[in-house]
Every structure is written in C-alpha cells, then in structure tokens.
C-alpha cells in the first residue's frame, strides 16, 4: 500500500514537472489582447468606494482597487469613471491606472488600461472591427480585446479592454519618449481652420500629455504653426511647408480608412474633427494622427467615400494635389479589396460576434436587448458584404471624373442607414 502511494506521488510529481512550464508560462500583453479570446477581468473594490464610484460617475475621482486577470493580481490600482457620451451610472466606463498609487507599477507593460463599456454601440464590435481595418492598412492603433468584466464577483457585462494612447503606447509603437502627444477633446466644430496665434483655443482642444514643465510655446507652437500653414492658400510652397508639420500621406490614409468604414465621428465627422490623437515626433515639428474610439463606424453602407471630406480644410487643400488624391483613392481601393479578400471583413465580424454573443446575451447592464444586438450583428455582416463593392464602384467613378455616390442595389435600401433605435451621435452645437 505504501509503495503504491509512493509510486502515485512520484507519478504526480513527474506529471506536474511536465505540465507546470505551460501553466507557469509568463503571461504577456499579447495574451491579454488576444483577439481570439474573451478575457475575464475581475475588479475588487471596497463596497463603500464602489457606491461612491457609481453615485459620482460624472467625476474623475480615482478609487483604489485590485485587478485580477488569470492568475495575475495587480494590487492597489486606481480606477475611475470615464467617457463622454458613453459615461453613465448603469454600465460604468472605467479607466485603470496601475501606477496611480504604486510608483512605476505596470501590468504587462501597461501603465493604464481602458475598460470600454461599449455603451454607444449596440453591436459592441464596431470599434474593434474598425481598428482591425486600420491595422490591416498598416496604421498604428491601440490594442484591444473583449472581456467579461466582474466587479466584486458580480458580472457587469461585456467590455473592451483597450490600450490607452499615452506615453507608454508611444514608447511601444514609436520607440520614442520625448515626443509630444495630444488628445483631441471636442469643444466646438473644428474643421482644421487657423484660430490665430493665441494658445488658448488650441489648448482647449488639444490636451497635451506630459511635458508639464515646458512652456506653451514649446508644446503648442509647432501645432499652431501646422494649422497656420495648412490654412495658407495653396501655392508653390504650400506642400513643402505643410509637410514640415504634418505627414500628409498618413493623414490622407487615415481619412480614407475612416471613409471606407463609414465613420461618422472621425476626422471628417458630422460635427467637425473628432476621435483622434495627434502625435509630434521627437525632435521634429511633424505631426501624425492616431485613431481613437470608432463606435460610430459602419453606420451607412452607401455612405459616399467623399462625404463631408471637403469640409475639412486639411483634406480639401491636400486633395488639390493629384498624388494625394490618387493616394486617397488607392487606400480606399485597398480597404475594399482587403475587406473582400477571402471575405476578411465578414469573417472578422462573424468571428468577433461568435466570441462575445453569449456573454452579451448575459450582459445585465447593456443598454439594448439581445434581439437588438443580434439584429445589429446581422446588419454589420451585411455591411461587410456590400460595402466593398459599393466603394469600388465609387472609386471607379471618381477615377473617371464622376464623384456621384455609388448606386444602391435595389432591395437593400432599407438597411443602408443604421441609426434607428440606437444612440444617435451626440448633438454638438
């Protein structure tokens, strides 16, 4: 009997040695942002703080908490309510700062993390799908994945875990630590016009991250100069001067991807520019755009590829250059063909829907019904099927000198515009 026990113990020990390395493998940010996995994230917060967080959801007050993912428990993180249009007391939008209370503490290299409540997207996958399109077109985007979120062991619903665009993100993507990053805050309708030499209106819109010890001239000077140069009449030196402040190719590419994904609240949004970060590379005056929050993508299947783009000063001026116009059409075409390639866009929608549907159906705090979610997914699949063809048709027309929007196939007109019974884009005056 004793020998048998010893043998079993030895076998168990041997088994654990063989299995342990895979179980004990260090988790990485790639594991966390694995788009093929529905993560499970748990937040632990004192019940008193949680009540305050809910009651004061409109404040940005941080509360202490622990975060648990798999076997990794990050203690003493800071958590607060976040969001503008998505901020609500039912399904909290959350931001976690890992180094809020513990100096230099990070989670898988991240200093902070956004828990997007997906409140404004009844389909819940728009942002993730649009960002996948940006990434497929070679653009730099924040990593994100879906998760089931539990707060104090109570299921709070499906969230997107999103890598914030911050200095840590810039260091990871550009390997730079001294550049200038600006978060765009929508204050008023802004089409990229020149607002004068004063810093104040730009500071209201462009929230500089870091560099707190530096003066406005150093932080905002090149940004203001950029808009000043953009707004000059296009002449022989316009392109050269503007290129000194803005990567025009990247800008045009960014707008083209937003156009393909029918983004209604982006650089050429319905209320001016919105949902982007601006980054000025270290030791240069040159800026580039970074996409953020694409919840208003995929709204209209037959949205023109040129919808509202003329309202934006930068884009309007850029389109007077044949090579930039050609680039715009090329990127649109690449988006369309890439989406069609082995039904990539459709498969992407289906894959994400499959990943989260059960969790969404169990989501107790989502603003819509299960039927509404299913309907929205069906519509996004329809978008993925039809949009590439319509865009390619419009590109062909544009290249032949005809800017008339694509013809809508009969029978699908009723599902082309997806704004009924969903949170409308915020009204901005």
């Amino acid at each position: 009997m004793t020998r048998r026990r010893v043998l079993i113990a030895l076998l168990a020990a041997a088994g654990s040695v063989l299995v342990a390395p895979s179980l004990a493998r260090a988790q990485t940010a790639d594991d966390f942002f694995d788009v093929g996995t529905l993560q499970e994230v748990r937040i632990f917060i004192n019940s008193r703080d949680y009540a305050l967080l809910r009651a004061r959801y409109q404040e940005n007050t941080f509360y202490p908490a622990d975060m648990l993912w798999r076997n990794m428990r990050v203690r003493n993180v800071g958590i607060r309510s976040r969001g503008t249009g998505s901020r609500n007391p039912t399904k909290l939008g959350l931001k976690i700062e890992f180094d809020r209370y513990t100096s230099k503490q990070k989670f898988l290299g991240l200093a902070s993390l956004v828990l997007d409540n997906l409140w404004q997207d009844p389909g819940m996958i728009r942002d993730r799908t649009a960002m996948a399109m940006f990434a497929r077109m070679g653009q730099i985007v924040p990593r994100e994945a879906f998760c089931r979120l539990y707060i104090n062991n109570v299921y709070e619903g499906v969230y997107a875990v999103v890598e914030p665009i911050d200095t840590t993100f810039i260091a990871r993507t550009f390997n730079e630590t001294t550049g200038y990053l600006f978060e765009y805050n929508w204050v008023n309708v802004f089409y990229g016009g020149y607002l004068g030499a004063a810093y104040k209106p730009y500071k209201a819109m462009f929230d500089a991250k870091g560099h707190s010890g530096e003066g406005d001239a150093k932080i905002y000077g090149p940004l203001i100069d950029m808009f000043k140069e953009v707004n000059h009449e296009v002449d022989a030196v316009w392109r050269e001067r503007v290129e000194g402040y803005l990567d025009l190719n990247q800008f045009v590419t960014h707008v083209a991807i937003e156009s393909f994904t029918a983004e209604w609240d982006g650089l050429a949004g319905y209320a001016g520019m919105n949902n982007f970060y601006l980054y000025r590379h270290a030791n240069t005056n040159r800026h580039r755009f970074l996409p953020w929050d694409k919840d208003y993508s995929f709204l209209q299947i037959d949205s023109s590829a040129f919808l509202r783009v003329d309202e934006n000063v930068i884009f309007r001026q850029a389109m007077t250059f044949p090579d930039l116009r050609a680039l715009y059409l090329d990127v649109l075409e690449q988006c369309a063909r890439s989406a069609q390639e082995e039904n990539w866009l459709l498969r992407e929608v289906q894959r994400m829907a499959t990943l989260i549907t059960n969790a969404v159906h169990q989501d107790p705090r989502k603003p819509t019904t299960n039927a509404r979610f299913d309907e929205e997914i069906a519509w996004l699949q329809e978008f993925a099927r039809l949009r590439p063809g319509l865009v390619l048709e419009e590109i062909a027309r544009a290249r032949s000198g005809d800017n008339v929007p694509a013809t809508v196939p009969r029978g699908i007109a009723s599902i082309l515009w997806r704004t009924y019974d969903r949170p409308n884009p915020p009204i901005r005056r």
Partner: protein
Amino acid sequence: MQDSRPTPANAWKFVWEDHPSVRWGTFLRMDFRAMLQGDILNAPVTPRGADDESWHLTRRRIGLDATVWRHVDFHVERELETDVEPWREVWGNFRPLEALQVRGGRFKLPMGLDQHTDTEHLDFVYRSRAGAVLAPGRDRGVMLHGEVFDRRLFYEIGVFDHDGHHAHTTVPERVMADRTVAGRIRVRPLAGFGAGLADLEGAVSFTTAEVEEGQPAIGGRTALGLPFFSTNIWVNGRQRRTGVEARWRPGPFGAQAEYIRLTTERLGESVEDTDLAPYLVTAWYVSGTWLLTGESKSGLLVPRRPVHRGGVGAVEIGIRYESFAFGTTAHDETPSLSPRASVIVGNRDRLLTLGVTWAPVRWLRVQFNGVRERLDDPAQGPNPDAPTFWSRVFRLQFAL
C-alpha cells in the same frame, strides 16, 4: 480634616514668590500666571512661507491656580487673541486623600512625559514629536488619580470625550477617536535614596478608544508643523496608544526618553471589504541636558546668579535625537499610496535638536535651537528636493 477657615489674624494677603498669589489664610490660595512668548524662525520652508524671519508672538496666555480648603484645586488657563480652543485647561480636583483624587474638566490625558512638561520648563523650543503630536493632549473628561507608597507610585486612570486635542480636526473626512480611556502609572523606585537617585522615574501609559470609519486626523508634521505624511488612508475600529517613558535628573544633568506607539484598526477597509493591517505611528526620543551654571535640573530653573545681581543667569545646553514614523504593521507586499493598501508607503522624520537656553532671571528665558531633520521619503515632505534640512529658531519667553 482640620478647619482651615481664616481667622482675622491671617485674613487676605498678597504674596509674590514663584507667582503673584492671593491667600486667605490657609483656606484659599490663588496663584496668577501669565506667559508671553515669541519666536523667530529661519528655515527653508516655514508654515508662514519661505524666508520668513519676522517676529511672531506664539503665546499670550494667562492662568489661575487655586486651592480651596486644602482639598479642592482649580486650574484655568486661557490663550488670548485666538478663536481656536482659547480655554486650554479648565479643571477642578478633589483630593480627600493623596492616594485618592478625582479630577474633572478639560485637561491633559495621562500620557506623555514631554507633553506633561509645562511650556516654561521645556528643555527645547519645540516639544518632541512624541509629545507634540502623538501624545493625546487635552480633552474633557474625569480622572481618578493619586500617589501611594510614599510618593513612589503614581496612578492616573480616566475617561475622556475623545483622544485629545492633537487629534481634533475640522476636516469632514478626518476622524478622531470616540470616548477614550487613558491610564498611566509612574514609579520612582529610588525615592528614598537621596537627591541624586530619588528623581529617577519611569512610567507606562495607554489609551484605548473606538474610531469610526474615516481617515485619521493624526498625520506627520515636521518640527515646524509642515506635513510630511498625509494620512489619506481609511481606518475603522479600535485605536490604541502605548507609551513608555523614563527620566533622571542628577544634579545639573538631565536625561529623558520616551516611546509612544499608536495603532488604529482598519476593519473591513480592504478592496474586498476584509480587514487590513492596522495603521501604525511610532515616535521616540532620547535627550540630555546640562546646566553649565550648576543649578539643579530637578525643580524650577532659578538662576543662582541672576543678571540683576551681577551674575550670568542660568545657561543650559541640550541635545535630543528623535524619530517619528508612519506606516502599517504589515510588511508583506509592495508599499503603496493606495488608501486601502495592506502596506502603505509610510515616511519617517528623524530629528536632531541642539539647544542652548539662557535664563538671565527667574521669569525670563532665551532659547536658541537648531533642528536638523531627515525624511526617509522627501517627496512627501515640504521640500521634495532636500531629504535633510536645518531649521533654526530663536525664542524669547516671559513666564510668571
């Protein structure tokens, strides 16, 4: 008890010994007290801002000590020109026996050697951190006390509204203890062994009370009162202080030491509503003094050769080293600034005080102190770039 009511022969009389005093035979005695005190500071940062070397009156105080019928004492002390707790002490004491006395009113809780030393008798300009912050100070209460075994043992035990004025706060989030029980036992084991040894004294003390959920009012402050530890943590539960003290004053020399430890429970304060390791504050000091002019350290500092009689007055030098530390009793994880961390990022101030006191006459004292402070975490202190800093303070004090 004898009848001590006055007869016509020993009726009203005015006497000026240590204090101006009015007496009515042995039935009534009233000693009048007054204090005027001003400081000049020189420090990198002061509560009044940097480079403030102007003269500030820090005490304008009057008081009265009275004894009636030999068995009832009264004490009243008021700070002039202040709206913050102007009545510093108001109490009455009934002593049918030396071994059994009852005191009621507002007075110092029985803890802290340095805290219980009157301002006009302090060896240094500032009290130790243990005495000035961690000892409870004054509160309203009632206390049983007495001295037994030929003044070899003194006991004090009382109940108070709160845990002293050092924890009083007007900040809504801050909490102080509720009803507090405090006690102290002092012993003079060598009381019958002659002047050199008789003064040797030791004591232990405690306070205990409940604290409602909130953030503790007792935080870290430097000698000049500048914050070096903000107590933005949550506490809830029992608060306990324990203190140990010792003093010996042979001839012109004096030595004393004190240690106070305060813990406050954090019941249900973790992120999972479980208990956290208690909040911990400790303070201790050791100090030594030498009256260069040879006066005896025990008792009042009365110059042997005051200036108005052609002498130099009394001159004393002193040194004190102390520590004042904040943290938690746990050490099992990475310290954090989170108000709900098991192990918080604490801080510690280590102070070295060098002092000279000159008493040209009985009622006048001039003190000069240099205080060197070193913070473990200067980022939390008044001068984040300087872990070590010196403060200099000059004090002129007139006390009746």
